[in-house]
């Protein structure tokens, strides 16, 4: 059976992520025991940061899809909205879950309600759950699409808010390790694995979204055929 682009990207993404994990556990240098309570747990960062990056791409797609549906009524944009929310849910959960594991080891608590970035990211993930479950509970139609696209737009306000939260209100969550004025705090090997992990997650997320859009397209075609069989237009 011939593989589609989305499935190829998914496959390469999975292989890349598995390789990243191997490199993270077997090759990445250890961090200083003075700087961390739990240095071994720091290795989860090679999963956590790329998945957060992928989540931002997914939420970006959700925003583009929501805007596109609201203003253009485009079927393609609605498919992007669906793909963005599903991919955002998957990567959001990956990020939150890995963050909780690291927080439990490093801070002694998996969650801190007073940390703005943790909470805004957690909320983004809840928004993705809300969109996915909510949409599945409703028949497809313009009312459903308008409502969830509007929630997608509101939710996107949280993306830039989450990004800057670490810089403005950082309480516990570590600040950015790349893209800072001082060039970042990573050594070359760590940076290389992180870059590889980020590329792998990027492939995964685009593969996920393309596959999701294809499935939605199939669903829409099936629904159109059902309406035809019902005697509709």
């Amino acid at each position, binding site marked *: 059976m011939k593989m589609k682009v989305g499935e190829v990207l998914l496959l390469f993404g999975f292989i890349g992520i598995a390789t990243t994990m191997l490199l993270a556990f077997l090759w990445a240098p250890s961090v200083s025991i003075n700087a961390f309570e739990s240095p071994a747990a720091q290795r989860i960062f090679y999963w956590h940061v790329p998945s957060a990056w992928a989540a931002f791409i997914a939420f970006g797609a959700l925003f583009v899809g929501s805007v596109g549906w609201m203003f253009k009524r485009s079927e393609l944009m609605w498919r992007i909205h669906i793909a963005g929310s599903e991919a955002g849910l998957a990567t959001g959960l990956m990020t939150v879950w890995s963050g909780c594991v690291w927080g439990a080891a490093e801070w002694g608590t998996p969650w801190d309600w007073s940390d703005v970035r943790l909470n805004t990211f957690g*909320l983004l993930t809840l928004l993705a759950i809300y969109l996915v479950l909510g949409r599945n509970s409703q028949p497809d139609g*313009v*009312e459903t699409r308008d409502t969830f696209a509007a929630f997608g737009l509101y939710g996107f306000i949280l993306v830039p808010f989450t990004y800057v939260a670490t810089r403005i209100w950082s309480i516990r969550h570590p600040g950015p390790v790349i893209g800072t004025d001082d060039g970042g705090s990573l050594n070359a090997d760590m940076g290389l694995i992180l870059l590889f992990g980020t590329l792998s997650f990027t492939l995964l997320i685009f593969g996920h979204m393309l596959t999701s859009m294809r499935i939605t397209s199939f669903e829409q075609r099936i629904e159109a055929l059902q309406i035809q069989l019902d005697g509709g237009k």
Partner: protein
Amino acid sequence: MARTLVEAVGIEVRRGMGVVLSNHHLELNQGDIMVLEGANGSGKSTLIEAVARLLPLEKGHISHGEHLVVDHEGRRKPSPLNVSLVLQKNGLLGCERVQEHLDIAMRMTGSTIDSTHFLEAFSLTHRASDNISNLSQGQARKVAVLSALLPAFASSEPCIVLMDEPDAGLDDRSMDALCGWITELNHLGHGLIISTHDERIKSLATVRHHLPDGTTTAVQNENHETKLSPQRPNSQQGQITPGQFGWNMQWRTLAWLNQNAMAALLTLGILLSLGELSDNLTEMQQLGFILAPALAAGLCGDAMVAMCREERTASWWYCVGTGTPHSGMLPFLLGGGITLLSSIAHTGSIELNTMVIGAILTGCVAHLLRFAQQSTERLARPQAVFIGLLTPVLILPYALLLDLLTR
């Protein structure tokens, strides 16, 4: 020349995955009885709901009395005319009383008339003080129909009367009365749009509007020589606001006790059961404990939203009133009361400032939740949406509030 009451220009309305009305035009003048004709699914109800400002337009616009009320760019403005409505669902709450609902409907026009004659004709006199929930489906339908007719009879200004299958479930005697009142309203200069499959009502039409093609045919109608009752004396009455209505219904049903107050009391009980664990709290943590029941009460939202979904009551209110029913000041009072209780339980003293903060917290959170709940009203199954998943957004502001108050 008769005044134009409703004008729909090139409207397109989508429902579900289909376009129900496309490039549709409609004009209703004073003194018209417009009957909408067409097969099931041709768009009769959709047209009535669009004219009632309940549906967004993809294209075109609708005016009431030459004032734009809804257009394809999302503008929705209140109608300058009195609009009365009966949808396929009755728009009634089970806890409302028959006479009370009719009075509310009439007061939307600013005046009321004696409804005794109408209740007699519909055999509802003995039910005037009864709860709607005690009526049969046919009786409830009669109340819904009267709530569309009476405001027009009470109003001295031309009204737009919108009725979607008013004949559903009505017996022969009631149909005779209904046909007589429709003709009477026509003579009084009101404009009626009626969707029906009933031949008796169809025979009253002065204009027939066929769907889905949108063709309109004027009808010469001999039935109009009906003997008219004298103009009914009316008395001036102020409108009841959605907040007043919500307040009344909340007290009658005690829904707030079941929903918001119980959540608050349970939270308070759980926190108090911590016993010694809560003895060595910081100032911020203690304030967090005191205000937690107020937050829990607010997070339960407004019980009126769920109540108004029963029979599309929110849609009825949106069309004929000034907004959808809500609990108004009740969450603020509840928040103040529960914080007072919590404050006494935790510290043994009454702190007025904390009480005010608790009141504001519950009130703001409850109304915020109401807006979120109401934003899903257009969905086919609004009750199936997981709005609670979004409530953690309020925890961070709560934490920041505590931080601010204890600095």
